């Protein structure tokens, strides 16, 4: 077995100076019996080394599908990428052959999932599942791979790594399991880590530990982190930039402080207003009216218009609002961003 890292480094068109990860106009749809569900409708964002980009949105806004499309693990059928680019260091991953694509996974771009219990294989030890990466991608022997697995468990601060390496996933607590997931994702030193709701299944104190661990490992490795979440509280602490997604589109993108100070899109504003705040204790919590649109039937114009307090006639007509540059390094897809910013 050969060392696959070396093979990935000679991917055709690889340019070390190109952006680490750039998603352009990504479209994903699911062709089901009940019709075509448009899960992602022109998502665009980028990621630099050492940076944390949070992708924020409600369930069903296309954030997980975007992540799976980047990884190339979309269930297909029914999922199809109909348009767009996923550029890693200048190479469009969507144009690679499947075997080339596979070498990028885990080596360059890795992913961790929400529920570590179901995301780990119940019938193999965590040691086996970690060592498997070194054996499949680095051609290591069983013994060497196992030693690397122990090192990894140590790095994610699992006490007694040497003995726990032989345990099965169900023998770990929720937080420890998520640490195993993280160890697995970081095994091959990827440059990009996509974390899909990594702390949603955990209780609050463990959430903080896991986020702290992710931040620590990211700093050590200068890794780009895409954090997919619906939890604005988590985002505020760790993210550098935020992309807010709604109905498969990035509706606002901004540095984290700017967005908290003054949201540029009505949806972002509504999300922020629905966070419980200590200084407003006792008052009624604002909720967003209505439901996100069915992906088989996305409204014309701005997808958010039926739920939006700012919506006027242009919002209800195609084309959808373009990404207005509302400030340096900030975009928002709202015709009335000035009003929103002003409020």
């Amino acid at each position, binding site marked *: 077995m050969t060392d696959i890292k070396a093979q990935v480094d000679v991917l055709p068109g690889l340019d070390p100076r190109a952006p680490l990860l750039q998603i352009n106009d990504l479209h994903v749809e699911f062709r089901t019996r009940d019709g075509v569900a448009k899960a992602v409708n022109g998502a665009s964002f980028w990621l630099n080394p050492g940076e944390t980009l949070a992708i924020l949105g409600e369930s069903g806004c296309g954030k997980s599908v975007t992540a*799976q499309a980047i*990884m190339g*693990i979309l269930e297909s059928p029914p999922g199809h990428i109909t348009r767009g680019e996923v550029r890693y260091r200048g190479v469009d991953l969507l144009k690679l052959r499947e075997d080339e694509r*596979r*070498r*990028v*996974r*885990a*080596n360059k771009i*890795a*992913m961790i*999932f929400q*529920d570590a219990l*179901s*995301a*780990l*294989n*119940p*019938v*193999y*030890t965590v040691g086996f599942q970690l060592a*498997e*990466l070194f054996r*499949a*991608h680095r051609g290591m022997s069983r013994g060497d791979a196992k030693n690397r697995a122990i090192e990894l468990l140590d790095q994610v601060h699992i006490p007694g790594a040497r003995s726990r390496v032989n345990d*099965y996933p*169900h023998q770990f607590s929720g937080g420890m399991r998520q640490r195993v*997931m993280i160890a*697995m994702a970081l095994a091959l030193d990827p440059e990009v880590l996509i974390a899909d709701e990594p702390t949603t299944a955990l209780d609050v104190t463990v959430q903080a530990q896991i986020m702290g661990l992710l931040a620590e490992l990211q700093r050590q490795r200068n890794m780009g982190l895409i954090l997919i979440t619906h939890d604005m509280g988590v985002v505020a602490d760790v993210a550098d930039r935020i992309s807010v997604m709604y109905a498969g589109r990035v509706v606002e993108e901004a540095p984290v402080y700017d967005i908290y100070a003054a949201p540029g899109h009505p949806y972002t504003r509504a999300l922020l207003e629905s966070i419980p705040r200590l200084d407003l204790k006792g008052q009624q919590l604002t909720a967003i009216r209505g439901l996100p649109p069915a992906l088989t039937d996305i409204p014309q114009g701005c997808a958010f218009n039926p739920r939006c307090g700012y919506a006027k006639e242009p919002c209800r007509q195609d084309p959808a609002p373009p990404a207005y540059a509302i400030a340096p390094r900030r975009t928002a897809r709202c015709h009335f961003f000035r009003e929103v910013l002003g409020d």
Partner: protein
Amino acid sequence: MFRYIVRRLLQMILTFFGATFVVFALMFANQDDPIQALVGEKPISDTLRAELTERYHLDDGFLSQYWHYMSNLLTGDLGDSLTGREISEMLSSSWPVTVRLALMAIVIAAVIAIAAGVWSAIRRGGLFDNGTLMFTLLLLAMPVVVLAPVAQWIFGMELGWFPATASRNATFYALLLPAIVLACTVVATQLRVTRTSVVENLRADYVRTARAKGLAPRRVVWVHVLRNSLIPVITLIGVDLGVLMSGAIVTEDVFNIPGVGSKLAQGVRTEDGPLVVGFVSVLVIFFLVMNLVVDLLYAALDPRIRYE
């Protein structure tokens, strides 16, 4: 684990007594005139009849007969058949060929069922999947009383590819055709169960993780999915092995194989109580042990199962 096995063995003793009692009672109730059945259509002298009745305790009550039988059985003496042969000797002469036949059949069935089941699960809705669906439906609809003679006629006689019958010391090759026929009786269910189980597991989250790890699709299926999918299949294979062991009656009859099944059928026909009860007792033990082995295999395949 050790305590679990001991407890299971103790439970087996109970099951064993229950099962032999039921079989004994059934044979007793069904008994018409075993002595007449033994000599066939010929008349029998009264002295001989009296002597045989005496020897086999045929005049005693049911419980007394059962007691006689069980006390012999527990000292390892299975007794004599009404034909005068020792049952243990009959068993040991018919056992090996049946074991070989059943093992061959189960291996053939399991290999085909797992390979085809996984393949049709991966390509679900495709030509192969629909083909195996038709094929398994056909097999399920075909009783072995039809399948065995037809296979014997076509492959044994018309085409002459296989010997049409097999003896006690049959070669692997001579047993192949009956083993395939026998495999056909269990392969369909095993294949459907494998397919369903693999389809279900392919949707599991850990499969997505395995793919995100950049593993080859072959490794994802045969290492990650298969082991999870095999858990229900193993149970079925274990039970099927017991079924094949005892259920080879028709197949052994058609192919003239002097195994356990054909002896047992003969015993039932001639109302040979000791023979039937003796054979069934051994089969019951075999069945119970197979069940235990399956449960232990379960724990080996799925670490979440621990026996206390």
